[in-house]
């Protein structure tokens, strides 16, 4: 087996019905992995942009990009080599935890407290996926009640 590598692929698609199913069906039908997937319309155009984090051997990644390109509503496929990549995470803590510590940690990961209620606080961080991993590991001791990650978005440098 060839070594499996993590890759980020951006896909520009016509923003129309069932286009997302075409993409995800292709991945499931051909046995490719999706680690994360984000999608949103591109402003002032009829296109949407998907960012897919996947993994596979060089051959598999090449097939993924070619197969994506074969789909009729796909305009462009970028397999990123040199990219800026960010991911957001929201975390909910009990208000009883050490808020000062949490706020300091958030700041170190491009984040801050975004909501404070009687019993809980919600924080956000936005950073490289690997650093988000780190953040989530560190804050574990503050008893997070809920964690949500956005999946990565990326731009070629």
């Amino acid at each position, binding site marked *: 087996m060839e070594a499996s590598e993590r890759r980020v692929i951006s896909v520009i698609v016509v923003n129309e019905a069932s286009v997302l199913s075409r993409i995800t069906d292709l991945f499931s*039908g051909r046995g490719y992995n999706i680690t994360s997937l984000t999608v949103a319309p591109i402003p002032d155009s009829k296109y949407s942009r998907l960012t897919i984090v996947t993994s596979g051997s060089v051959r598999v990644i090449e*097939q993924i990009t*070619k197969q994506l*390109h*074969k789909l*009729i509503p796909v*305009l462009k496929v970028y397999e990123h080599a040199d990219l800026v990549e960010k991911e957001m995470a929201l975390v909910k803590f009990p208000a009883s935890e050490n808020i000062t510590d949490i706020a300091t940690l958030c700041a170190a990961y491009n984040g801050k407290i975004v909501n404070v209620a009687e019993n809980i606080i919600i924080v956000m961080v936005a950073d490289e996926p690997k650093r988000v991993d780190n953040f989530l590991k560190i804050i574990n001791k503050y008893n997070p009640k809920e964690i949500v990650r956005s999946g990565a978005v990326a731009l070629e440098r």
Partner: protein
Amino acid sequence: MQISGAQMVIEALIAEGVDTVFGYPGGAIMNIYDEIYKQDKFEHILTRHEQAAVHAAEGYSKASGKVGVAMITSGPGFTNAVTGLADAYMDSIPLVVISGQVPMSLIGTDAFQEIDAVGISRSCTKHNYLVTDAKDLPRILKEAFYIASSGRPGPVHVDIPKDVTAQIASFDYSIELGLETYKPHTKGNPRQIKKAMEAIAKAKRPLFYLGGGIINSNAAYEVRELVHATGIPAVETFMARGTLSHDDEYLISMLGMHGSYAANMAMSETDLVIGLGARFDDRVTGKLSEFAKNAGVIHVDIDPASISKLVNADYPIVGDIKNVVGEMLKLSSSINPAKYTSWKDTIKNFDTLHPLTYHEDTDRLKPQWVIQRVGELLGDDANISTDVGQHQMWTAQFYPFSRPRQFISSGGLGTMGFGFPAAMGVKAASPDKVSINFTGDGSILMNCQELMTAVEKKLPVINIILNNNYLGMVRQWQTLFYDKRHSETDLSVQPDFVKLAEAFGGIGYRVTTKDEFDAALKGALEKNIVAFIDVVVERLENVMPMVPSGGSLFNMMLLEKKEKKK
């Protein structure tokens, strides 16, 4: 022009030059059938099963080179048609398949005969549409025909809710195609083509590896020219049969699991594979790591995803075979055809050592004899369809094909039940040729209801049933790899095929000897109605040679050598 959605479908088909539509009506598609009733520009052929409608459209398309059209209703009508869509997808056959759908207001409510048709067809079509507004229909239908027939061809499915077929909207078919995201690459890169030709000039044992893309691209005659200009020997895939004429001195034979010894050995010994419109399918390559191990690879294909998918291409060329081969021809003077004499002698020796043949050593007829006999009697005058199984491989091995589009078979999906309806489509497209369907006693029962269609529409397909009372190919694998445990493959209990054909108004023959076979074929040709010729053949005949699944091409099971019976 303000017309209904249903009328738009008819107008679009007429504008596309469609002369034959295969289909089966039902609730959700009744508005369209009402318009079919009112028109006389194209013929509608009512099959007796939706699967057969799509296979017939495939046969029609393969024989004519045009887009095949089929129509079905929602729910079970559509699900019955899915096998045909998948078959066309695997073999890159251009089809437009139109299905009815429940009205928009009922979609998602589990309505009567509702199924998420585009959800099902997504993975077995080149593209599909759910039409939500009649004003989109002209564009969608025009795109459907264009997408089906351009680039790597394939089936396009258009699902139309019943209320959309009743909706009135403006129809203008002269609209320009948008499709900015779909631009098939047809012209090969000139620098790559030049580099490929330089590689060919340097090679000592080059080999053409001809695939079905040549037929789809209508490039067989250009390929013949290139083969003759360069003097390089060629092997054909199953899908490419007929690209070179059977008597072409440069044609070795078919390669792959049931390819000839010489073809598979040539592929194993070559130092440069020149792949044209072939996709290195597992039935062709055998064990990938041993496939053409010491060879460079030129791969010409219109589908970039086919290139370096399984075998790495040293010279990838994305483009239409017809264009690329045309460019290659212009550069072919750099190649000296006399150079390959010893290479060709090597291949000839392989063929002498283990020729593609069989032994007539039993009392019962040999299936291979029947196929060869039809070849002798009809040759070029017949179009040949097959079902799936042993008879299919024997046909590919032993029929003397002389032209492209003469051989119509289900290659990629391997669909039993394909042959008879496909042969009806072939006959509809090519009425001047005899339409033969070689089939087995297993396959024929999977769409035998089409006898009715063939009788009604006067499509005199001659079905030659090579009857060994087995699901022969599975039986062969059980004999060879499952220690002769013939699990559920014995078809000793079967219908009277003569009476079956007669019950529908066709003609039937049961044949046990060579003379009876000749007489039956002659009779069927003279009667000119749909026929079953039930040929009792040797039960335990195996398709040989054979590369066991996952084995290397050079490691073939071969026909036992025998002294000729006196």
